């Protein structure tokens, strides 16, 4: 969408992010360049997932990292690229945090569900529910006082960010991930809550510290190049 088109749509809709929806897309097919970007993005998430698990060396095992710094990356990628970001999160976990650290395909495919559900829900909640209530679905209101001239609700945005992402979705992710690993016999029941806490707080820390840097540093760059998806697919 050009600058002029955007201004036109701004005057019609209440918020500057109203063109980011849960529709399939903007009516244009996915271009080759976009497919390439999505493929490259998935590769980036694989690498970052792998580094997230191995960075702390032998302290991390069973694919669980005490500081899973890829988490905010694939959340932000999902906000930009919809289903492709969600796919990247899943594939990144299966290959980067699973196969490449020696978990085997079955365990990897199973426990990577814990990285699939949160971004899926984030995309639905923010674009479907919160965008029309004054909360930016690209999370720019976490770091900016205004977006395209419209004042943001920073405090509300942060409260929602911590409650929805940091607490609820993170807990779901930990429950799924540690639960599946326990079910498969990779983690003993006696250590369940210890690992759950490690997963939960590791992801929470990564999210709170890294997300604002990503959002502030990159969203504008990506938007200026016309690369943020209007909907799920394109």
């Amino acid at each position: 969408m050009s600058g002029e088109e955007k201004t036109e749509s701004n005057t019609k809709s209440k918020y500057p992010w109203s063109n980011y929806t849960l529709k399939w897309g903007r009516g244009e097919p996915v271009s080759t360049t976009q497919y390439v970007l999505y493929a490259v993005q998935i590769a980036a998430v694989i690498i970052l997932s792998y580094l997230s698990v191995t960075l702390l060396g032998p302290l991390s095992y069973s694919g669980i990292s005490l500081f899973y710094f890829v988490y905010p990356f694939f959340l932000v990628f999902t906000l930009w690229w919809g289903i492709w970001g969600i796919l990247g999160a899943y594939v990144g976990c299966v290959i980067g945090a699973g196969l490449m650290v020696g978990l085997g395909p079955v365990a990897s495919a199973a426990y990577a569900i814990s990285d699939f559900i949160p971004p899926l829900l984030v995309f639905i909640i923010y674009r479907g529910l919160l965008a029309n209530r004054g909360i930016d679905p690209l999370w720019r209101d976490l770091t900016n006082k205004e977006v395209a001239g419209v004042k943001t609700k920073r405090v509300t945005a942060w409260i929602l960010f911590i409650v929805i992402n940091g607490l609820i979705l993170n807990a779901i992710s930990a429950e799924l991930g540690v639960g599946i690993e326990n079910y498969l016999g990779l983690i003993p029941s006696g250590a369940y809550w210890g690992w759950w806490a490690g997963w939960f707080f590791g992801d929470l820390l990564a999210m709170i510290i890294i997300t604002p840097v990503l959002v502030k540093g990159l969203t504008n760059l990506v938007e200026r190049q016309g690369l943020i998806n209007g909907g799920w697919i394109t």
Partner: protein
Amino acid sequence: MPVLEVKDFWWKYRSFVGVENPYTLKGLSFTVEKGEFLGIIGPSGAGKTTLCYALTGIIPKVFTVPRGREREHIKGEIKLFDQTLTKVEQVKDEKTGRMVDKVVGMKQTAPRVGLLLQDPENQFLRMDLLHEISFGMELLGLSEEEIESRAKEALEIVGLGPLWPIADLVHPNELSGGQKQRAAIASFIALRPEVLVLDEPTSNLDPEGKLGIIQAIDNIKKEYDITIILVEHNPEVIQKYADKVLAINDGQAIAYGTTEEVYSQCKLFEENGLYSSDIARIGWKAGLSYNGRVPFTVDEMIEACNGRNQKLLGANPEDDPLDPSDKEIISVKDLSYSYEDGTQALKGVTFTIRQGECVGLIGQNGAGKSTLSKIISGLYKKFQGEAKVNGLDLRDRKVIQKIPCYVGYVFQNPDNQIFMRKVYDEIAYGLKNLKVPQQEVDPRVKEALKSVGLLSKIDEDPMFLGKGEKRRLTVASILAMNPKIMIVDEPTTGQDFRMSEDIMCLLEELNKAGTTILVITHDMTLVSEHTKRVIVMHNGTVLYDGSTRCFFSNEELLDEADIIPPMAARFSLEYKKKNPLAPDLMNVKEWVTALNQGKQTESA
């Protein structure tokens, strides 16, 4: 009939947010005949790559225009093979029945037109050489036998024939940049194109890689009657192959004609920051001519000198003597380094560099230059032997951590070094890491930006700076850290003449102010003009360490190191064959001074 016709073509990139983009191409008009070799030259940001995209249909198929605003973004027309490639026309909309503007033209230019880009990594799309070559043919739906035979032939043409038997086993990581580029050329050749557009194909390559590409282009010209359009900074290449040259700046044509017609306009070149050859610059500044124009080649220059009865005698120009009391700032003894896969990058390297020197570190790719400089800057840790910087032993892990305080490393690719979204913050990043007090940060940032001419961009987003500006920004970000030693990796790669000069002048000023400079480069002109001492790496060892002048005047050493000296130095070597008493001159400035002095002496 021309193969390509560009008629008053204008193009503006789409803007998605914020301010509209300006026009990148402004009213270009030219034609290219069948079998012609057109060279396109211009400073950075002139629009050369955009023009390549327009000539191959990438604009507007990949870089689209917004609906309803076609005429704002595209004006004029491009015709290819006498068909419209790009044009805006009024057509009847099927749904509404109204007349609307639409971009019309060929849907696809492949396989008749091929495009080779600058970065070899982004063009090697498959995971083995065989499928990379066969990619285009597979997309065309050719038979397996046809694909196989064309692929083999194409590899031979580009000099990669020996890899044919193992082509399906060769992974892209096993190929050098030059080989990847040649593979990309082969993949287009296999499609039997009628036009091949090459956008600075040798920019990111070492001299060996560059030579491979040039030879491939040479072979293609001889074997096929392909129309070639080459964007290239190197005037020697253009002068050797091109039939016609188009010079552009700021999206507009500033010169168009035969190679001779265009390259004779030395003043225009200087004003627009274009590369002309050393010989042309010497001829122009010394007032020598060949057949009514400046000489282009060494032979023409020698004839021009003979024509003026020009003889040079005397001693070599004086090189600045090293103060023997200068402190040793870098000292390396029996330094060795192996990569994880067992490759030995350095084998017992020994040398010292004194404070205040400006040294060129040269050699073919794989010689060990990068590895050596990364060890010195504390970026590679596990080495054998001894390495000291500013008297500190790099074998001590605690010392290595502190080395960035003393050694500033400017990498080749600015994109990998920009961490912030504001120019100010980008410079301040390093200072904050060094825990420089806040009250000192601001003046140091501004001083650094001032010295590179970027003060006016202090609040800009570095991602959207031009190529040359990004390069200067990365230099400034290291400068602000006040290192005693600066290591600069390929400062002039991909830069136009003016930018290269600016960067090198900046480094010279820093050197005069006391900073020790180590320049890693393949640009021998840069070495001859700005460094008095050179360390030549070859297969992980030091082949030569000494005066740049002595190195460039020693043909045996040059052969052994596999290095082609700058044109001015080659001229000197040739000139001395007939005039043994002539001094060893290695750059344009020295030649011009010597020739002008010689002229004065004769007049007197």
